[in-house]
């Protein structure tokens, strides 16, 4: 069964035909060519597919494309403007928040959502907010530090 859906993705209105059994992740990657969100585990554990759905971080592999009808979706591609990266993103680069980069999109979404809600998170709060994102390369030290540094940037 196919569904006609209308959603806002990274600030733009989109209208798509999606198959019932396709996930939001598949829709984003294959139909909208937003390949920032990755297919890591397909089980809602690794966080590589994390996107914002109506302002909340979710695993796109556990949301059906059809469920996104009427919703607002933000992917990592939608964090920066045309002209500049978020402080979080720049600091992430400067402070080695990633190595292979596979987990980075998911972490940036989760971290940006945290910083939007909580301007001064302590380390435990940062860790809890990022607990749903796994990294196999960095050992998390650089990631946590980068997020903490980003929280200290005056906006």
């Amino acid at each position, binding site marked *: *069964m196919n569904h006609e859906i209308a959603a806002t993705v990274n600030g733009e209105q989109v209208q798509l035909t999606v198959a*019932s*059994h396709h996930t939001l992740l598949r829709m984003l990657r294959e139909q909208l060519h937003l390949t920032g969100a990755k297919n890591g585990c397909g089980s809602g554990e690794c966080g590589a597919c994390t996107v914002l759905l109506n302002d909340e971080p979710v695993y796109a*592999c556990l949301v*059906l494309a059809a469920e996104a009808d009427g919703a607002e979706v933000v992917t990592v591609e939608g964090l920066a403007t045309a002209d500049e990266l978020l402080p979080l993103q720049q600091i992430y680069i400067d402070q080695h928040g990633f190595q292979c980069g596979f987990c980075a999109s998911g972490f940036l979404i989760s971290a940006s959502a945290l910083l939007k809600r909580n301007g001064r998170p302590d380390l435990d709060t940062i860790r809890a907010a990022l607990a749903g994102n796994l990294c196999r390369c960095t050992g998390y030290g650089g990631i946590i530090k980068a997020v903490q540094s980003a929280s200290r940037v005056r906006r």
Partner: protein
Amino acid sequence: MQPFDYIRPRNLEEASHLLAQAGKRARVLAGGADLLIGLEHGMVSADWLIDIKHLPETTGLSLDPVEGLRCGAAVTLRQLTSHPEVRRIFPLLVEACDHIGSVQIRNRATVGGTICSASPASSLATVLLCYDTQCHVFGPEGERNLPLSEFFLGFRLTALTPGELLTQIVLPLPARHTKTAYHQLRIGSAGHPPLVGVAVAASLNPDRQGDWRLALTSVAPHPYRARQAEALLAGPLPTPATLHEAVDAVEKSSQPIDDHRASAAYRLAMVRVLARRALEEVAGQLAGGSP
């Protein structure tokens, strides 16, 4: 994933009708945090997914001064635990949910989905048992209510009959100055289900006689109330001897199994430890009269 059809019923009657017609070929879709994993990995199959998230009966969350907390089945764990009154009046819900999954999971997983998955290892179901939760069900015969303690019939088996769905739960207001504790053992970081979990809630009546609730998870086919232990604890503040008897009763009531996470023997040993800690913590709070 094997293809299936996705349907948003316009009302409860339509949802119930679709479920009754399709039987095991249809599944209710709430948060999808459990169902979609099963579908992705071929452990579950369905021809229809019935999305209940848009029905008004399933999405409300409100506190009534007489009736208590009304929580729709499609309310997410995040919505539940960020409600200020829930945090204040039902602290066990927050303690349980804070360690379920991750932020991303809690933004999707629902109260109803968690209950109806009927996992033997559910922190949320366990603390809901301590709060005397009532389940509101809608089906082909109309509405019915039953206590959560009668909702789980066995391993991943609920009391829902064909065509029925859980619409909301109701938690009566706990007695004033109810003291609570939830102790769980998990391997590794958050996100994994509890190896053992013990939830306790108790209050003293004006004559300082205690009323106790004790619920357990991961040591039986489904979460349950340890009634024998509760009966032993009821009455005057428990002495160390009484607490010891209650822990014995908890151990006796449990029937853990060996699985890939832990052995039955380990769970049996740990349920004693957690039960003793939780009971001592609550008994101490009751005795101390802390607010």
